């Protein structure tokens, strides 16, 4: 049972981190992933911008700041772009101090090598970079979740929150490698396929984009079908009844539409007219044994009028 002891659960102040200190052993996987990412970025970048995501991730994870993984992810395209300008941070700061335009970049003027599908070394470099990025993000998320509750719905402390299963640590590198390798295989395969034809480089990118997005949609549909089968078998009876009611209603609506609607509205309108007649009748007659209070009758009429729009 993963429930903390009752006393501990009640006595802790809201928002307080449960008594788990920072252990170096918890930080070691993050350091390893940072090392892998450093190796990859060092191969594909030429300026000092590559250090920024590493620093952000290391400092943010050490401080258990929840926004660290997101900032790290958004810093990746930024530093890759800055690196492609060929201007390092030291040169950029110098130009800032000298009063030159710091936002001027030479597009494609520098930077490291791009992914070359014909060069195995380039493939490995980008594989390591992609795997390192994902591993850094995943381990930072896990480390931060261990130290502060990831839930936004309340302020109670996490009772052993983030204590994931033991096999998760072993499965994670394998899953990351499979993912980046699968994408790379698809990449190389499409490059080989497109190289046999004479397309422009821009068209190659576009075709690859369309193929990947379309393939993703097809895969998503297949997964959704399988999920639908699983969810349908495990569906709550009430929810299933609601779904059937909606489906039957939608089907029925095609058959019984305009004429029945107008007949129903006509009937309701007649009912309303009859009720108005009753009300007038009630207000007009003297109070009988059932309603002895004239004030009550006036209130009835007022209440009914008040609900009319």
């Amino acid at each position, binding site marked *: *049972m*993963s*429930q903390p002891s009752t006393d501990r*659960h009640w006595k802790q102040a*809201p*928002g307080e981190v449960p008594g788990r200190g920072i252990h170096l052993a918890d930080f070691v996987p993050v350091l390893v992933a940072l090392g892998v990412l450093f190796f990859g970025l060092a191969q594909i970048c030429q300026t000092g911008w590559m250090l920024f995501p590493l620093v952000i991730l290391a400092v943010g994870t050490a401080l258990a700041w929840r926004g660290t*993984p997101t900032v790290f*992810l958004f810093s990746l395209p930024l530093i*890759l772009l800055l690196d492609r300008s060929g201007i390092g941070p030291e040169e950029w700061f110098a130009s800032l101090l000298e009063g030159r335009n710091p936002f001027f970049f030479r597009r494609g003027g520098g930077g490291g090598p*791009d992914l070359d599908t014909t060069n195995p070394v380039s493939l490995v470099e980008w594989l390591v970079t992609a795997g390192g*990025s994902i591993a850094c993000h995943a381990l930072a*998320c896990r480390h931060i979740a261990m130290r502060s*509750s*990831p*839930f*936004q*719905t*309340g*302020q*109670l402390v*996490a009772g052993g*929150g*983030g204590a994931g*299963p033991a096999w*998760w640590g072993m499965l994670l590198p394998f899953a990351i490698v499979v*993912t980046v390798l*699968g*994408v790379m295989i698809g990449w190389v395969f499409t490059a080989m396929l497109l190289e046999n034809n004479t397309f422009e480089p821009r068209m190659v*990118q*576009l075709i690859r984009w369309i193929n*990947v997005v379309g393939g*993703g949609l097809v895969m*998503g549909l297949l*997964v959704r079908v399988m*999920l639908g089968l699983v*969810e349908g078998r*495990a569906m709550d009876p*009430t*929810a299933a009844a*609601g*779904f*059937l*009611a*909606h*489906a*039957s*209603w939608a089907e*029925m609506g095609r058959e019984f539409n*305009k004429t029945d*609607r107008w007949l*129903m509205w006509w009937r*309701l309108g007649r009912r309303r007219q009859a009720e108005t007649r*009753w009300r007038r009748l009630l207000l007009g007659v003297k109070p009988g044994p*059932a*309603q*002895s209070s004239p004030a*009550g009758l006036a209130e009835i009429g007022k209440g*009914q009028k008040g*609900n009319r*729009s």
Partner: protein
Amino acid sequence: MLTRRGWAMAVAGLILAGLGLINWLDGFAYLGFCLLGWLGVNWVRMRFATASLARDISLTRLVRDRGGVCRTLRDGQALTISCAVINRGRFTLPLVRLEDRPPADMVWTNRPIQKTGWFSSRLVRDPWPAADGTIPPGGQLEVLWRGRLASPGVARFEGARLTVIDPQGLVGHSVFIRSPVEMLVLPDPGAVEDPAGGGKRSNNLLPPGQHRLRRPGGSSEILDVRDYVPGDSPRHIAWKLSARRDRIIVRDFESEVPVRCQLVVDGTRPLRKWHPGGTRLASLATAAAGVLEHSLEQRDPVGLVVAEEARVFIRQPAGGSRHRLRVLQTLAESCASPGVSPPREEDPRVLFPQALRVAREIYPDIARSPWAAMPWRWILWGPPRPGFSRYGGIGGWIYRHRVYTWLVPPILMVTSYVVASGWMCLAVPLSGPALWLAVRLASFFPQWQLRDRKVLATVLAAREAGNPALLDALLEDDTLLATRLRAFLAEHREDRNLVAPPLAALRVQSAARAERLALGLLSAVSRARDPELHVLFSDTEDLGARLDRLERAVRVSRSRRHEVMVVLAPKVMDSWSWGADTRTPAGSEEGRPWYKRSILRAAGLWINRKFGLRKGAMEDPAKTGAPPKPEGDNAVPVENEALAELRRRLGRLGVPVVVGKDSAAEAQRLVARLRRCGARAGAR
């Protein structure tokens, strides 16, 4: 469902892939697609792990008081609630938050204080007791919390919400496990007056052996000795003591003849109206429980009559703990019942916010599903159906009469032909789309409300075994929808702060409360054997109508040598000072969805609240120190007049009237005094 972190990863991946496309950089695109692929892998894994979550999770709940696990609760009792879920699936749920939904009338006593700060996360307005953790296959997670119930009735524990996210916080899934449990909440009698003070020193009932009581008392216990008073029986003279003291001394025996007491409780709808401290019926039930306890301490049989509009509950007078429990259960059930009300023509939109909140909390798998709501294309392009609602203001009127817009182009065409106007000819083809657009824009809000209506109708139809005809009728009939929504909220015990339904245009029987109370009193009289005590619990609001019937019933009771006493519920002002319930009543400006609020009215309310410009506006009693007047300026004087009239008319018959917050204690004192001083039927 992606979390914020998951969306951030998706956006970052798309940015990288897009940069790669724009700049012809394969590496960027590859990196972006890797991020998107990693997100997809986690999404698929998480979805498969939680696809059968509702089936794989079982919930157990235990409610404990000081004595251990209990099934029947008491008002105001300190309780510890344990809610545990067990994972019977094959997957480990890595990060889980279990939130237990407290009942409507329950106060979470050890609720933590929410911190606010520059970087604090979004605060939840009404958080539920929760615990976080990991649930491996076969493992369990438990949340323990403490609370107490604010008023008698029924406590309904609906279930718990389980939120599961993956270890990286990219994908999350939330499910509500419905496991409704209802427990009776008995009224708490509070401190019972000293029973010795109400000891039956002299019972002015007919002497033993001369009455119709089947089990007369033995009169063997000497309670006291006193001087002789002319009229005392010579049998009770203590001769030895008299000789010793040189004056006649008489022994007082404890009378074991039970004094039967019947509690007649008014259970009509006005008493069920919710006030911030609870209903008046709840306070009356508490007072009745006090009198019950007080009488049972004296070993007197106590009966109960609850008079509602359409029915009367009767518990025959009896004694014993089992009977005591039954009477308390009847009181609690009466407090919990929403009352019988026939379907009434009513605007159902007033009930939408409350019903939607309950539906989204308890039935999220239906209310938040994409198929439950009206499709957006119907809102934008216009549904062929449904749409009948006689409410909705001018927008609703336009929407109901939208079909007449099709008459405009032919009319224009004929007119242009008659008057031979070229401009009018030009207007003919344009008038159709222009009018269609105008109607769409003018009736946008009624169409928007169709989405909410469809969600609620689907939830209600799902609870009726998925009846599509009911779903169709609920979309068309306002009265049916309002009636079903009231029943839905009452079943989930969430009808506390609803606006009252409008009065019926026609009544097949009188709903005058005095008449119903008189009926209850007469039924008690008809079941009486000996001269006994009848205690009426009611309220002065609207009691003036048909008061002659009540007066007549009291006359009948008094003529049969019974004693009658009236206990009235505390006034509204007292009720307001009881609790700190700040829930906004449904139907008020603040309880409405934003698209239904009037900006000017909301601004006026805010200015009134902020600066107190208007006297009698909604003032904060904590700031002003003055008790608010929730029912208008003339509510209290009218109530005082009704009370004076009731006291005057019943006072002539010798019936005391007790009113106020401490009515229970005062009623107990009065009962004790009645017993002690012998102001029973025999003394008349």
